[in-house]
């Protein structure tokens, strides 16, 4: 005896309610996560935006013999305390390389001192009352304003916050990543190819697999200790160099690349391998001519994601010394350098409150690079995804 639709529907009410509750709960979780994300990003943007703006003052600079000896004399007394010390330091050099400047007076925009910058941004500033009046007057005259801070992207670190930039750290990151990728990409891919295509299915292979999976979960600071003890202590690699930083990060990224390459290789259907064996390919030919070309997009995607992870690592690099003060990046692999996350860390430790905005600005730049890399990985994966 079967029930009518009405009877069954009445019984189902409870199940439908539970189903709807589940739907709202999971949606709520998503919204909560999105709110955290929006909150974090907007907080960073609000804090970091001032880093991209720098106060500049239009002053008259007198180039003569006196100002060559005493650069401070090149500028009018009232505006002298408002100009960045760094500007004065570069004056004699400019006069050396441009002799035609001698005996002239030029009006130009120069970088203002940090307190002026903080005052114009609206933060707490140590400017005296008279100095503030001078600044206000200059603003009214149109001789002081906030301009876009290109120096942030072109200069290295500096003791003076108004002159500090992330360029040196960016170059350091680039070189460190070059070392990391050139070591762990070939080794990782070839290890994964061996484990997936050639290794027999026995106890030893399983032990290796378990260990690789565990290595991927090891806290990164331990790799820093390893780098310190073995690379610097035993092999004598120069401390604080992109070489040692890259090698340390390579060890850390290796398990990630192995795992993602294995997943890419596994996603190649066996029918292709069988077809290749069927026409008389040796195992190496099957891998080289059929499996690898098809799985290459997946391998690249995994490598880019591993690269993005390595780029944001700070703790292991601190241990191998990449928190040095680097005003200018050298392009060699053995000189001391720093990386972007370490630079952010250094700025965050500075007592001067003007560095707070630099910290947030640095975070924004790093986030932009990481988002770009991940978007590139997703795009690659979508473009080359095949339907068998």
């Amino acid at each position, binding site marked *: 005896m079967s029930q009518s639709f009405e009877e069954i529907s009445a019984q189902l009410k409870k199940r439908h309610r539970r189903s709807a509750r589940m739907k709202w709960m999971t949606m709520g979780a998503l919204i909560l996560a999105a709110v955290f994300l929006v909150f974090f990003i907007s907080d960073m943007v609000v804090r970091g935006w001032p880093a991209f703006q720098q106060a500049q003052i239009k002053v008259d600079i007198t180039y003569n013999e006196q100002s060559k000896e005493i650069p401070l004399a090149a500028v009018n007394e009232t505006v002298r305390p408002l100009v960045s010390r760094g500007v004065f330091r570069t004056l004699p050099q400019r006069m050396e390389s441009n002799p035609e400047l001698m005996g002239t007076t030029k009006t130009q925009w120069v970088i203002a001192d940090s307190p002026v910058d903080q005052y114009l941004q609206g933060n707490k500033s140590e400017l005296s009352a008279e100095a503030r009046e001078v600044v206000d007057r200059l603003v009214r005259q149109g001789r002081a304003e906030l301009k876009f801070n290109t120096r942030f992207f072109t200069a290295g670190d500096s003791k003076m916050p108004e002159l500090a930039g992330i360029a040196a750290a960016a170059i350091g990151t680039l070189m460190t990543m070059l070392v990391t990728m050139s070591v762990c990409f070939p080794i990782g891919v070839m290890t994964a190819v061996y484990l997936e295509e050639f290794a*027999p299915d026995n106890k030893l292979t399983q032990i290796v697999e378990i260990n690789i999976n565990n290595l991927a979960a090891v806290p990164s600071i331990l790799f820093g200790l390893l780098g310190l003890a073995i690379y610097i202590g035993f092999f004598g690699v120069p401390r604080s160099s992109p070489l040692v930083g890259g090698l340390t990060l390579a060890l850390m990224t290796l398990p990630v690349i192995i795992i993602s390459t294995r997943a890419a290789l596994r996603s190649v259907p066996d029918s292709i391998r069988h077809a290749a064996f*069927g*026409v008389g390919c040796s195992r190496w*030919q099957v891998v080289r001519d*059929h499996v690898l070309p098809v799985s290459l997009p997946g391998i690249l995607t995994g490598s880019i994601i591993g690269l993005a992870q390595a780029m944001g690592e700070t703790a292991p690099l601190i241990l191998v010394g990449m928190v040095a003060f680097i005003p200018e990046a050298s392009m060699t692999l053995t000189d001391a350098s720093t990386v972007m996350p370490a630079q952010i860390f250094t700025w965050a430790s500075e007592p001067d409150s003007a560095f707070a905005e630099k910290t947030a600005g640095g975070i924004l730049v790093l986030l932009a690079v990481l988002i770009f890399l991940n978007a590139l990985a997703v795009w690659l994966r979508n473009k080359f995804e095949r339907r068998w």
Partner: protein
Amino acid sequence: MNDTTLQDFQTQQEPPMTSEGGAREQYSDAPTPDKGQPVTRNENVEENLSVRVRDLNLWYGEHQALNDISIDIFANTVTALIGPSGCGKSTFLRCLNRMNDLISTVRIKGLVEMDGRDVNARGMDEVALRRRVGMVFQKPNPFPKSIYENVAYAPRMHDMVSRKADQDELVERALRDAGLWNEVKDKLYEPGTSLSGGQQQRLCIARAIAVQPDIILMDEPTSALDPISTATIEDLMDKLKKDFTIVTVTHNMQQAARVADYTAFFHLGDMIEYNATKQMFANPHTKKAEDYITGRYG
């Protein structure tokens, strides 16, 4: 993936021999009468023989899949292997080109002899074997390359051709022989996967014949195709047997009746009967074969 070959597990009374006389003596002679005497086409049996299988046993781990299979496959014929699901037809087919080596739990005992050589012997290179024994699979699996590359890849890899002109000629000949040339001659560089199912299967056949094997194994080649493509491929099998020996597994008895010269009936790992197709279908020797052919079970 496992590369272990089966030599470690194979037990033979004596080391494998390459001389014909020696290899014969230790095994039972021609298939015994209750399994159906194959009709020999002429007195000199050796000339017509393509593959000799004697007392072939195969285990997947503990489970025995083939029990003492003995069969003669004749050159330039189409031999069909029929039987209900799970009876060992595909397993047996894969023994002929050692594709079972790819499965790690497989253990083989017995003789599979081609051209006077034991195929499972220690000295036999399975890559060389697969050059002479081609395979077409149940689900069409062209390489993810262009149509041209699909056909040209293997001959180039085996150093059969090198110059572009030679490759072009070989590709055209293989595609013509597979009955695909007219449909693809304008789009040779399109991906192989852009073709229809029947065309893909013919591409796989072209790929198999491009290396000029002696034997072509076909594992249910038309089971995934529509009737028109099936008919095309059956015509192809008939045409190809002039140059190749074809062994095909088929679920479809009517197909066996249509294309095959010889038919072997398998049941639960045993080969019950082996005979010329007309004889087998008109007058089966064994009850099991008769029941299957008349459709009493399937």
